[in-house]
């Protein structure tokens, strides 16, 4: 026990004395969440629109007011002819143009109705689609209200959409679990695999294996400080998410801690596994980066929804451990789900943990013959 403790102290010293890596470890999570929170936002806010109002009547002005008061749009300019409008769109001054037909208001009372046209700059296809969707929704709301006054007796079917758990569709909600998953797997798996292969590379692993230390003591000693480091990182990300970006936390902190700890252990076992495969630090780093970071970002549902992937990639995403953590985290944080909801994720993660540990032990034995 004394041996293990002295070994853990030695490993902590390695980490604490490497100021540069330490700085990266603590600054990286902060930078990530701030970048994702402030810069990369997928929601629409103050999108620049231009108006070509050929009608200029009460109804058209009402529609524009509604668009603006929604907070999603901001009128950049008014145009008097379509050439001006097209030029503005081409220059990128506006992201979408709203065109009213000359008899917009009066046509509204006619049975075949009237029309308003949205012309969006689709060189950024995702944003264009979202702008049009938002605008359509707002106009539909207006239409419903004004026709309701006219003929209340035959109310048509009303579809009312409400976004639960993330009512304002804020992108930062989506990115907090993703960043947690990415940072924790990076810190835990990459840092441990590098630090274990470093001992192999420098030849100190041999000295340790010849010493009375047991292999499990060596591994535990190397891994223990990273558990603490990962927990600190998890707390930082959560704190920034909750207090700066007001990400909701409706579930139990206990369950959140349990799920996160399980994921950290899973990542550490993955790091140990990588270190039994990689001959040196460089290889360990590349395996971690390409086998962990990219798939975490691309395939775990962090940025791109899994449902939109081709089927074979969806299958691939089933073997991405972060996928389950992200899903469990979302359930717990946003929906306030309990263990009864996330038990499947917990089970899968435990399975991964055991599998990586068994593989590591096997590889370790093969190496020693």
């Amino acid at each position, binding site marked *: 026990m004394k041996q293990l403790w002295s070994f853990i102290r030695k490993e902590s*010293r390695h980490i604490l004395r490497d100021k540069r890596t330490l700085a990266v470890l603590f600054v990286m999570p902060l930078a990530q969440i701030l970048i994702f929170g402030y810069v990369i936002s997928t929601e629409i806010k103050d999108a620049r629109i231009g108006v070509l109002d050929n009608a200029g009547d009460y109804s058209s002005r009402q529609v524009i007011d509604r668009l603006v008061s929604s907070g999603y749009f901001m009128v950049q300019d008014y145009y008097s002819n379509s050439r001006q409008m097209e030029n503005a769109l081409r220059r990128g001054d506006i992201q979408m143009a709203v065109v009213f037909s000359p008899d917009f208001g009066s046509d509204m009372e006619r049975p075949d109705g009237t029309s308003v046209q949205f012309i969006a700059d689709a060189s950024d296809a995702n944003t264009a689609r979202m702008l049009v969707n938002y605008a359509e929704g707002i106009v539909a709301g207006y239409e419903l209200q004004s026709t309701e006054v006219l003929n209340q007796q035959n109310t048509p079917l009303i579809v009312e959409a409400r976004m639960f758990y993330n009512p304002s569709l804020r992108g930062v909600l989506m990115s907090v679990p993703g960043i947690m998953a990415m940072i924790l797997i990076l810190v835990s798996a990459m840092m441990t695999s590098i630090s274990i292969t470093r001992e192999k590379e*420098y030849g100190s692993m*041999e*000295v340790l294996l*010849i*010493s009375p230390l047991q292999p499990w003591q060596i591994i535990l000693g190397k891994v223990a400080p990273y558990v603490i480091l990962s927990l600190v990182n998890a707390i930082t990300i959560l704190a920034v998410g909750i207090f700066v970006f007001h990400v909701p936390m409706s579930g139990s902190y206990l369950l959140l801690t349990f799920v996160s700890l399980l994921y950290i252990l899973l990542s550490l076992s993955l790091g140990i596994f990588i270190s039994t495969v990689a001959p040196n630090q460089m290889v360990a780093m590349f395996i971690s980066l390409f086998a962990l970071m990219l798939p975490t970002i691309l395939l775990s549902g962090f940025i791109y929804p899994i449902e939109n992937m081709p089927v074979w990639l969806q299958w691939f995403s089933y073997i991405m451990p972060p996928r389950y953590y992200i899903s469990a985290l979302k359930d717990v944080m946003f929906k306030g789900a309990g263990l009864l909801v996330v038990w499947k994720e917990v089970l899968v993660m435990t399975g991964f943990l055991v599998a990586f540990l068994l593989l590591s032990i096997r590889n370790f034995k093969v190496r020693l013959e």
Partner: protein
Amino acid sequence: MEASSYVINVKDLVKKFGDFTANDRLTFHVKRGEIFGFLGANGAGKTTAIKILCGLSVPTSGFVEVSGYNVKTQSEKVKSSIGYMSQKFSLYDDLTVFENIRLFGTIYGLSSGEIKERSADMLSRLGIEEQRNRLIGTLSLGWKQKLAFSVAVLHRPKIVFLDEPTSGVDPITRRQFWELIYQAADEGITVFVTTHYMDEAEYCNRVTIMVDGRISALDTPSGLKSQMKCDSMNDVFLKLTRPN
């Protein structure tokens, strides 16, 4: 042969990696307090043999006993009775001299009182008491090697294994290093050393020369020289490894 006077007993040791035989029926015995040199070209099977002796690798067949314990079945007991130092690693660069001593002292089961006492004694013998809190990384390679050796014998092992301990250091430091080895041998520690410096072979009590996984000679340096009719160990080595 009385078993008690030998601390290493190796009989018909064979180690195979697939079809390749790294150690081919090695048989040798090392006496207590002896400085036993293990010579051979790169790839002759020295490292494989030393790994088996230290319990890091399992022999394919044969009998290996180190400090009275069978390496196959009692490797844990073997481990706590030996010390080990390799050319590649000499202490952690980002820890101080004393932190390194304390780490390895604790790993080998010394109490903190013993560590304090022995490290003070060791540093004063080396004449570097004032470097106690210096980072190892800021020391010269020669000092690192000398410290690494002193740390390897800190727990007073029965045998210390040195795997090319002096490669890359200058002749003066090498000389000083060998003085440390003699001191350890005087205290009754058996020294098992591999080297490719032939002048160092002359310092050993007995020398084994390995060629292609086999022991091709085993005797005192002077015995080998007279047997092979050579003036120096260098010539002996060349004659054995390149017969033509």
